[in-house]
């Protein structure tokens, strides 16, 4: 399932990416907000994990090493001479998420360190620093491992609110037709994601049991 960045922002106090998590998905406003909050915290975690490993959470590739001069500055201050995008740490401390009333997600660096973030991501086009991107540009996504974690959360959100029509489900005669039907309500998701998310909604499991369709679930879903 594609989760692409719709818009980026680059101002003196805001370097950020706005991401639509729920394109073409039927999810209530309350569930969208709750889900966006979880996804936001996961993104903060994974971006920090990747920056600790000196790699881009967008491309997945390692950052270019520091220049000799800057490395000397960092090590002279007792900091590791590696491209982890922190000297004092204030920029990475300012990495934050904002969730709108309808579950719109914005992730970025807000406040006085926004300029430093643009220095690395170059949303403005004005940065002369080596690109060390940690926020996706318009049309881009986070790397696949991060997307997988986000997709699981979104699939659970769909499973929470989905209304599966009995008549439509009763048309399922095989595992493949069962999942074909489910994919109408879980667009863009894999069978594994769908099954795993269904298991987080006992009411849905009960409904499928009552319709005699539980046999089409593989049983693990993890």
């Amino acid at each position: 399932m594609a989760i692409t960045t719709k818009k980026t922002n680059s101002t003196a106090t805001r370097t950020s990416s706005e991401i639509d998590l729920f394109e073409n998905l039927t999810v209530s406003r309350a569930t969208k907000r709750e889900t966006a909050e979880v996804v936001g915290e996961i993104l903060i975690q994974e971006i920090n994990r990747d920056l600790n490993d000196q790699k881009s959470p967008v491309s997945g590739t390692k950052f270019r090493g520091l220049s000799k001069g800057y490395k000397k500055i960092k090590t002279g201050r007792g900091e590791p001479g590696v491209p982890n995008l922190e000297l004092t740490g204030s920029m990475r401390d300012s990495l934050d998420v904002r969730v709108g009333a309808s579950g719109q997600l914005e992730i970025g660096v807000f406040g006085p360190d926004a300029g430093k973030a643009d220095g690395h991501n170059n949303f403005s086009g004005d940065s002369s620093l080596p690109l060390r991107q940690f926020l996706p540009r318009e049309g881009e996504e986070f790397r696949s491992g991060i997307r997988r974690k986000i997709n699981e959360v979104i699939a659970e959100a769909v499973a929470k609110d989905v209304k599966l029509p009995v008549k439509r489900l009763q048309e399922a005669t095989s595992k493949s037709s069962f999942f074909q039907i489910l994919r109408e309500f879980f667009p863009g998701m894999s069978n594994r994601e769908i099954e795993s998310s269904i298991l987080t909604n006992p009411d849905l499991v009960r409904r499928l049991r009552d319709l005699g369709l539980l046999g089409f679930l593989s049983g693990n879903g993890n």
Partner: protein
Amino acid sequence: MATVIKGKGFKVTIKLDTLKAIADPKKIMNAKTQKDLGSKTLDAIKDRVAIGLSPVKGVRRYMAYASTRNGKGYPNTPDIQKKFPNKSTRPVNLKLSGEFLDALEHKKKSGGVEIGWFNPTRHIKNLIETHQQGLHPDVPRRQVLPTDEGNEFVSPIQRLIKNIVLRRISEIIKKGS
């Protein structure tokens, strides 16, 4: 259904509150579920701390060590660097020898699990008072567990806990079919 997480002292307790489930709480909170809750929550806590992030909602990144904040001090002191030459200023992961986080455990409790430091040694108690409780005047508080009134785990950990219970309920429904 609500999973209640209450913190006190050196521990947090995770248990089910009111249930709208088809089985009684004891059936849901069986030994395997308790083990999963304990071990997976503990893994998620340690994973987050290793990155330099607090598992407590609202805290996010741990404050930098003294060396970064003040230009000198921990961990760039001669004694620390001699004994632990790989200890870096970043990430702030509360790990030197590893004993503080290794001492964090989970235990089954009626209707749930407890996660915390059980019977800590004097040394570990000092570290708990420093990091978890923020009682050292020169060291910023760096909370690992949500033990204060009103504290919560960050939402991904809350989700993990909730899903373990929901999957167990789904398993019961499936087995009953």
